[in-house]
């Protein structure tokens, strides 16, 4: 597969969030078949770090994000937040950890309740936690909305970008440590996307946030992330700091992703053909082998393990590109 | 596969409906024994009748007994008339069937062109007129409509008889004149429901990308409506045809009373008034079987209409 393994994980005491061998499956139709959405993914984040996750639709990005907040809990694997195992928690104990881990969603419209006012949407967190609610104005201000005009209105009176700001305010007001952003800018126009990306960077510095940033656009992910992880069909392909990943991609899939961007100067021979196979019935060995220009027999037999190929550059592939 | 699955489910529903109705009818106050012997009968006489009729058995035993009988076509013997229930039902079923089928044919036959015409010119005068008309029909209770139709066609113009029934076997022409008014009355309410459903779904379909693209390929509006839009818009309509059977039968009960038709609905009403449990229960079985049959048919039609349902 685009592979498994935990070689790339850092010592436990250095990281704030540590995810090991995450597996998420969903039932697929009848006859007990399952969709293997996330199949043994591991990663970790230091405090204040941003991890970017890229991959095509259906590669398990969002499933992984939701498994982090235990909605629903993963099939197996562990999610350690500051040493605390979240997957072992249920009910009230799990609820108590929620403040520390917040999430921002893709669809700015559907993630806000159309019947509530912005003040109630943003103030919901403090009310749930019985915190003083007077920070609503401050947080709205921080995300670039004017509390005076915005707070009493309902979501449909705002544009997509403004709705996304409201979502961010709702997450931030609880002063979380980790914020998971699941495609937060995918539904936005370029000009608004830039506003939100800059805003996230500002807020990260101001509130000392640790971010998991998920998107399908490599350029966007690279812009905000310290490290970038490439996923394919529920598996990790490659992990490296953004600059390193773009300048020296080693995994055939990473190379194909870069070459597919119209503006990139990558040679056409790294392009791939065909379409991703069904996650109900993933290929044996390396999951990318059905589309991989470099695949060999070994790739169908043996799943590649994650190994180090440079300083903080990690790869799961048997036959990486030579010019790496 | 899916159809088999549904069939099993519907059979379970059938069992549940018959059991619940059996239990309900038996648990309600009112006693056939009193109905047969009158209030003044002695306790011994009552016990005697009770035993004869098997009413001293526990409910579940009686139900299973009765169910076993149904399986062999024996619907029991009416406590009141002492006639086999099956014979009575068999005699009346054709009347009700003819009424229901005629009503359904009228309703669908008119609803489809009306729905299509309204959707095609949504928002314009014709649509508004048709919408208003179907709204009015929808809001007219069958017995009101029936009375009005009788008043106009039977009393004032005297083109059809107000009441009574001529079986097909006697005279086809007379049969048709005796079924037309009841069927129209019963069909009109359904017609309104169907036309509105079809109109709404068609309008939604007409906004789909694939319709715009069909227009972009230079296809004529007529072709787009009938070949492209109608089938994907028919799902709700088909469901309604299946689910509405209950409403239709409720209507049939009234219509048969109003027009004096000797159908199953009339039988059920009469049996209810005379506390003739077994006849009521027989009627319920018939209706439930009809419901199941119609819904199996609906599932088959579904699969024919929408390939997404037709998975292996």
């Amino acid at each position, binding site marked *: 597969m685009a592979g498994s393994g935990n070689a790339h994980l850092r010592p436990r005491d250095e990281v704030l969030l540590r995810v090991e061998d995450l597996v998420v499956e969903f039932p697929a139709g009848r006859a007990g078949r399952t969709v293997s959405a996330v199949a043994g993914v591991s990663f970790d984040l230091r405090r204040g770090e941003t991890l970017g996750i890229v991959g095509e639709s259906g590669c398990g990005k969002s499933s992984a994000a939701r498994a982090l907040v235990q909605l629903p809990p993963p099939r197996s694997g562990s999610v350690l937040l500051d040493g605390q195992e979240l997957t072992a928690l249920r009910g009230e104990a799990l609820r108590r950890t929620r403040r520390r881990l917040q999430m921002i969603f893709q669809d700015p419209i559907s993630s806000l309740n159309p019947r509530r006012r912005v003040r109630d949407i943003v103030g919901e967190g403090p009310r749930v936690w019985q915190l003083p609610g007077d920070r609503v104005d401050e947080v709205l201000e921080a995300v670039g909305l004017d509390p005076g005009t915005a707070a009493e209105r309902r979501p449909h009176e705002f544009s997509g970008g403004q709705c996304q700001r409201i979502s961010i305010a709702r997450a931030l007001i609880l002063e979380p440590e980790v914020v998971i952003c699941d495609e937060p800018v995918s539904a936005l126009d370029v000009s608004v996307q830039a506003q939100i990306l800059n805003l996230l960077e500002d807020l990260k510095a101001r509130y000392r946030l640790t971010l998991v940033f998920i998107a399908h656009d490599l350029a966007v992910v690279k812009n905000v992330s310290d490290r970038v992880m490439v996923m394919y069909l529920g598996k990790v392909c490659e992990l490296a700091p953004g600059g390193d990943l773009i300048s020296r991609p080693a995994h055939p899939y990473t190379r194909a992703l870069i070459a597919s961007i119209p503006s990139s100067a990558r040679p056409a021979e790294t392009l791939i053909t065909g379409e991703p196979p069904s996650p109900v019935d993933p290929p044996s060995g390396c999951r990318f082998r059905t589309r991989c220009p470099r695949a060999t027999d070994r790739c169908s037999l043996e799943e590649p393990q994650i190994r180090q190929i440079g300083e903080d550059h990690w790869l799961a592939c048997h036959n990486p590109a030579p010019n790496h | 596969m899916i159809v088999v699955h549904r069939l099993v489910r519907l059979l379970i529903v059938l069992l549940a409906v018959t059991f619940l109705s059996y239990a309900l009818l038996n648990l309600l106050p009112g006693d056939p024994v009193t109905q047969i012997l009158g209030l003044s009968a002695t306790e011994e006489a009552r016990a005697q009748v009770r035993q004869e009729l098997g009413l001293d058995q526990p409910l579940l035993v009686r139900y299973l007994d009765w169910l076993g009988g149904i399986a062999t076509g024996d619907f029991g013997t009416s406590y009141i008339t002492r006639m086999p229930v099956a014979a009575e039902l068999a005699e009346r079923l054709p009347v009700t069937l003819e009424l229901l089928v005629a009503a359904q044919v009228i309703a669908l036959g008119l609803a489809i062109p009306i729905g299509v015409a309204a959707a095609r010119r949504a928002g314009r005068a014709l649509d508004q007129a048709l919408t208003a008309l179907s709204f009015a029909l929808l809001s007219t*209770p069958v*017995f009101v409509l029936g009375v009005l139709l009788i008043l106009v066609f039977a009393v004032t113009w005297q083109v059809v008889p107000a009441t009574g029934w001529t079986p097909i076997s006697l005279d086809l022409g007379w049969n048709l004149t005796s079924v037309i008014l009841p069927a129209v009355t019963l069909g009109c309410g359904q017609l309104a429901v169907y036309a509105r459903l079809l109109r709404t779904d068609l309008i939604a379909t007409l906004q789909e990308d694939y319709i715009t693209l*069909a227009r972009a390929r230079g296809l004529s509006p007529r072709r787009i409506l009938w070949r492209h839009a109608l089938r994907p818009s028919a799902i709700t309509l088909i469901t309604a045809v299946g689910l509405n059977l209950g409403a239709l039968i*409720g209507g049939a009960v009234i219509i048969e009373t109003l027009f004096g038709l000797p159908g199953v609905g009339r039988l059920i009403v009469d049996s209810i008034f005379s506390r003739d449990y077994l006849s009521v229960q027989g009627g319920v079985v018939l209706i439930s079987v009809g419901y199941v049959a119609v819904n199996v048919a609906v599932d088959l039609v579904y699969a024919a209409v929408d390939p997404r349902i037709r998975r292996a």
Partner: protein
Amino acid sequence: MRRGRLSARLGLGFWLATGWILLVLLAALLADVLPLARYDETLAGPPRSGPSPAHPFGTDGLGRDVLSRVVHGARVSLGVGLGAVLLGLAIGAPLGLLAGYRRKAADAVIMALNDVAQAFPALVFALAVVAFAGANLRNVIIVLGVLGVPSWVRLVRGSTLTYAGREFVLAARVLGARDRRILWREVVPNVAVPASSYAFIGMAVVIVAEGSLAFLGLSVQAPTPTWGGLINEGRTIMEDAPNVVLAPSVVMFLTVLSFNLVGDRLRALTDVREIGLEPVRQAVAAVPAPTAPHPVRDCLLQAEDVRTHFVTPRGLVKAVDGVSFTLERGRTLAVVGESGSGKSMLIRSILGLLPGTAVRGGTVYLSGDDLTARSPAEMRSVLGPRLGTVFQDPMTALNPVRTIGAQVTEPLRVHLRMGRRQAREEAVRLLASVGIPDPARTLRRYPHQLSGGMRQRVTIAMALSCGPDVLFADEPTTALDVTIQDQVLRLLHRLREERDMAVVLVSHDLSVVARWADEVIVMYAGRVVERGPAAEVFGRPRMPYTEALLQAAPRLTDPAHHRLRVISGRPPDLADLPAGCAFRARCAYAGDRCATEPPPLTEVEGRAYACWHPLPSTETSLEGTHVDGR
């Protein structure tokens, strides 16, 4: 303001219906104090008399005042309606919420019970229960209420399911809200809208059901009058006293109609717009400004001053406002701009495929032939054979219930009059040419059996089937993954070369445009703000908006945490455009003139821009094109 619009949207019928309901309700409440004859007083007037001042609805067979009896009957109808609806709601709504929110086991059990209830012949049961348990108000309410439960469960479950699946419910869970709070705060307020609409429709249903029972003599017993009972009594004497049966009939009809109408209008508030296949004729069409005389050029496609306006309640929306361009064979024209800038409407205007509420202006020439002068029927002979179209979302671009074969062969058979066999063979060739493996088998399949990339290839094959001269591709790859997107764009390019077509490529993704287009027009708020050869426009943008767009997108080559240059604010409201330049509020170069005079599209050396203070034409790095939109 909002209130006013709301009442207008509900319509006159709604208010009339509400008025009637209130009237009946009041009459029922005040029946005893109103100056009416007693409902059971026989010989209050001569029997079977028609309407008169003393007895507005006449008298019945026993000389009782019909009006009084109808008014008292309203008590039973409305009372039963209210009671049964509330009872059904009280039982059905919690069950529906539970089934829709909890799903799994709770849902399975509740829905199985519902299935059984559905198969119950409801009226028969109502009859039986009322007959055996006693025909009185309480029993009728209980029976009709309970019989209404399945419908309530289905309705509430359905809308709970929709809302419980929305991301805002997930967000509330992430916040740590407990289920009960989520149900009350997030789900119930949303479910309340359809439920309140259904409450009115339910009233109508119950009133009819009560009437049916009463008609059969199984509702509240005499001497209390009921509408159904009155109708039943009246029909025996309808030959000589039709007023006795007509009065309750009409009142009942109006009441049921009113409840249905109110329920329907409430539901329509949350519904989508209703647009048919044929345009609604505009009362007063807002005629776009007359077009200046223009030369008809010798080129494949020429658009002159195309305008698309919508008359909306908010005012005139100028979705496309004076767009002109020309296009030669074998070239690709890209239309770029942010969401809502009018790109799609421009394409639809050219093709004559606008929604019914649109007003079109300007002229479009295809090889010198004026398309806007054609009737719809004449236009159809061009659509397909000469103009091909591909849309954004391949998931919705194919008819789900027809085979690929039926859809691909259709234009061949309609336009090229091919026979079945011939069309099939041609379809196989077409599918092969767009890179579909095993085309013969694909013809027999349905759209849902294909992946998104394959479907987009099929729609491209369909667009190309009659050999069009111009292919319009509205965001053909936006819904696809990057690797697939690249394949499809390459395919389009190859086909353009092979067939010597012209392509109009709509995209919001500047990198796609820079890579694949020869010419580009940049749109902002419905107008062209810059036009020219793609390399030049992106290499040396003259209009500040183009420059800002280029800089707003992150580039692969930027270092991490590179601060993006943002365009502040957002596009203006098209119904309320500012005077002067539409971009002024967001423009870093704006001057005084920008606020008052809209900049005209100025042509300079094969390029054009609309700006009072254009950027210098010095060479900036071509790096600027290396961007990616979304």
